[in-house]
């Protein structure tokens, strides 16, 4: 087992309103550790020394919950493609490396403490999307709603989004359009999502704008940072859905 000496530059910020700064820590790490386990070791030492441990978000540690969120050496979730921070292993680093660790940087994601940001903006966008109407009553027959394979696949590709916010973190404009595109598209591709499809896309885009995210300028950085490899084709899909919904929503507003 080969241990490596690492120098970490970690963003430390006591609370939302206080100014933060980078602090440097030296640590030993095994190549078998995950990135978060490496930070756990750093935190154990900090606690032993009576210091405040580095606060970071984490939950499932198996790459599906979307909680872990840090920019590692300039890339959200680190340098590995299609990998969340918790699934990033220290064997991807070398002895003597300096690793810069920062929180997601976006106005809509204020830093709460150290590496933890408030991603409530994403929750509010999801909430603004509302519900899908569902028939109550007896259980429908299996396969009573036919969905072409390609549509089902595309809906599932969009539904892979774990809402981690790496797209916003990676975007030079801190835009949330990949996230919103994925969330709009996954329901817009399925018959179950059709009833409210037009108001849903309008409401989600309005909420996205209200949260203070930037605007997509088609850099494609979101797609290459997304741990679930969600394609920017969903941004195009969202734009299409949004434009298609304009006349409908104006009509319904007039009727109100």
């Amino acid at each position, binding site marked *: 087992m080969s241990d490596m000496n690492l120098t970490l*530059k970690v*963003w430390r910020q006591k609370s939302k309103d206080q100014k933060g700064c*980078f602090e440097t820590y030296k640590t030993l790490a095994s190549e078998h550790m995950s990135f978060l386990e490496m930070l756990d070791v750093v935190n154990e030492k900090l606690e032993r020394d009576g210091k405040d441990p580095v606060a970071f978000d984490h939950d499932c540690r198996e790459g599906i919950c979307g909680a872990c969120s840090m*920019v590692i*050496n*300039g*890339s959200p979730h680190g*340098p590995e493609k299609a990998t969340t921070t918790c699934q990033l292993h220290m064997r991807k680093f070398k002895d003597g490396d300096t690793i*810069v660790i*920062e929180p997601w*940087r*976006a*106005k*809509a994601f204020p830093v709460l403490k150290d590496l933890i940001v408030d991603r409530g903006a994403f929750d509010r966008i999801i909430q*603004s999307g509302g519900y899908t109407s569902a028939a109550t009553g007896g259980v429908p027959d299996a396969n009573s709603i036919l969905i072409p394979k390609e549509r089902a696949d*595309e809906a599932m590709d969009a539904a892979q989004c774990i809402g981690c916010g790496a797209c916003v973190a*990676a975007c*030079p*404009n*801190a*835009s949330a*359009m990949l996230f919103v595109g994925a969330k709009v598209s996954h329901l817009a591709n399925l018959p179950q999502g059709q009833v409210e499809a037009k108001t849903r896309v*309008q*409401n989600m*885009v*309005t*909420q*996205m*704008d209200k949260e*203070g*995210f*930037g*605007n*997509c*300028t*088609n*850099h*494609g*950085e979101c*797609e*290459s*940072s997304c741990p679930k490899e969600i*394609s*920017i*084709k969903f*941004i*195009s*899909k*969202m*734009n*299409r*859905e*949004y*434009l298609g919904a*304009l006349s409908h*929503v104006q009509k319904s*507003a007039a009727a109100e």
Partner: protein
Amino acid sequence: MNRDCPAQTSIGKKVLMALTGLMLSGFIVGHLLGNLTIFAGREWINSYAYHLEELKPLVWAARITLLGLVTIHILTAICLTIKNRQARPVAYAKKEHQTTSVGARTMALTGTVILAFIIFHLMHFTFRVTHPEISNSLDEHGHRDVFKMVVMSFQRPELAFGYVAALTLLFLHLSHGLWSLFQSIGLLGERTLPVAKKISCAVSFILYLAYISIPLTCYFGLVKV
């Protein structure tokens, strides 16, 4: 939920950028076709310029439309850029870029320089105030000698290479802008996205080569007065 006017939303503004960009790209193609008549000789380009000026009301309508398109394109770009800068108040200490292109990252810069170039270009060839000594001669029909004006202008290295430099920036701007506009109006999908990127680069490069052929051939003496 209270909704803004569609043109005020993020997607609405992107669509405005896309549609004005598309129409301005159309002008770039048309303008090129007209310019290329220089290779058919003095008669052709002078007669093209003469007939274009004969259509005065239409030319002015086109000019006002173009001015409107450019204004919308620029004002919307300023709006979006301000919003984008505000969206990340604290910059990263270290940031890696993975896929973005030079064209994409310099849209605001290339756009600004292209605006300055357009103003100079109008002063140079349309209103003929920068180089009156070579811009106001007439040909044997008593029409404006556009051929002579263009060729003699581009015999000067600062003008020839200044135009090539400005057109290089236009190429960068278009290489990102052309495919982006179709993405913004929601026309691209899984199969069309990579193709659109390649076509966008190819089309803007062909336009670039065709445009710079004029100052370069004049400068190197392949087209002579």
